[in-house]
């Protein structure tokens, strides 16, 4: 295990430990997911078919909204505890910090998504289970992209005025292409078609994920710098 790997892992360990202790984010996001369920139902009305046809979009809308809340808080511990400088003063490649945070965010987002998928399946009475395998692939790829850019922008907005406003304003436009891809792929997959039919979208997601990850790893140190 290299020093880089150790540093990334200790950041992951710290964030998971903090979250498990305070449970702030997880509880709020769980409750938020429940709220969304009701919001969507009320916004779309009782027509079951309408809801079912909108399902892929609603699912990802839910993830993105939860992401806005959850990811925006990524660096709140650093800000509140004044640890930002401490991180800056640590030797070595700062992208290890980004990687650790990214992994922590990815895990957090995945937990929220599992909850949302479960809630959707139960409350909207839709069959998400038979397509669970392919759905997982789409979820994974979409979450990587969301977490990669979200972690990067969260670091930036942590130190800026009006951060609650700026974070979604920056993140959402960049998420649009990913959203188009994931919703389309989810639609294909939930329609019972094989994963291969969504190949073009998946390739786009993989490409976008790689691009955003690389940019995040390369530019994080500039956000952290004094």
């Amino acid at each position: 295990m290299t020093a880089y790997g150790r540093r990334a892992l200790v950041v992951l360990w710290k964030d998971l430990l903090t979250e498990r202790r305070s449970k702030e984010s997880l509880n709020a996001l769980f409750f938020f997911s429940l709220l969304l369920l009701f919001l969507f139902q009320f916004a779309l009305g009782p027509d079951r078919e309408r809801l079912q046809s909108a399902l892929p979009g609603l699912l990802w809308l839910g993830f993105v909204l939860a992401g806005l809340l959850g990811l925006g808080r990524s660096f709140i511990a650093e800000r509140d505890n004044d640890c930002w400088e401490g991180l800056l003063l640590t030797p070595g490649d700062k992208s290890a910090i980004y990687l650790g945070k990214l992994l922590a965010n990815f895990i957090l987002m995945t937990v929220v998504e599992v909850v949302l998928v479960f809630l959707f399946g139960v409350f909207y009475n839709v069959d998400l289970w038979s397509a669970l395998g392919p759905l997982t692939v789409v979820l994974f790829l979409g979450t990587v992209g969301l977490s990669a850019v979200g972690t990067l922008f969260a670091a930036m907005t942590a130190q800026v005025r009006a951060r609650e406003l700026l974070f979604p304003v920056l993140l959402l436009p960049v998420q649009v292409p990913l959203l188009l891809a994931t919703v389309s792929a989810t639609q294909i997959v939930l329609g019972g078609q094989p994963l291969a039919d969504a190949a073009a979208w998946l390739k786009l997601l993989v490409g976008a994920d790689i691009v955003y990850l690389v940019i995040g790893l390369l530019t994080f140190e500039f956000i952290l710098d004094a």
Partner: protein
Amino acid sequence: MRTSTRALGWLAALALVIGLGAAFGYAPREAVQGNVQRIMYLHVPSILTAYLAFALVLLGSIGYLATRRAGWDRLAASAGELGVLFTGITIVTGSIWGKPTWGTWWTWDARLTSTAVLFLVYTGYLLLRGMVDEPERRGRYAAVVGIVGAANIPIVHFSVKWWRALHQPSTILGPEPSPIAAPIAAALLVNWVALTLLFVYFLARRIEIARLEDGARDA
């Protein structure tokens, strides 16, 4: 204003006049759409100019992160502003074109949607710049967003294209052979050159102003 910039301004003005002449006089009236189609001579060069602007934002962003010299940041900021302006012009002219042609002010077709997303990304860029006071940090943060924004452009392009196909197939930047008639192509080219000259003129003046502002602040 420097003499070179002033000369550039005059040149741009001249080119615009020629362009207008080409658009209204030289180019033929389009059979199906009528005269409203002439707005294309502003619409298409506008988005091309916006792409140029955003390429310069990328250049300035990378340059600033690499050298930390304020000149690069001024380039990125000025190009960003102009990029948003020209993207706005593209959207508005596209909308004006669309109303009589397709019957609606807005459609979620591939090109308009991509352009709208572009507009949102770089408006976010400008908002970020407005919210960070310290120049050095502002430059760094803006540079990161500038890089992400630029990387986003091809991703948006492909995702939206596959998502929808109402708009006329891309006759200039697409891989298919261009079916445009020669006089239309010529008028388009002239207007593109004119608009690019105008852009460069605006950019030069904007950077000058930025340099003066920085100088006044630090004096």
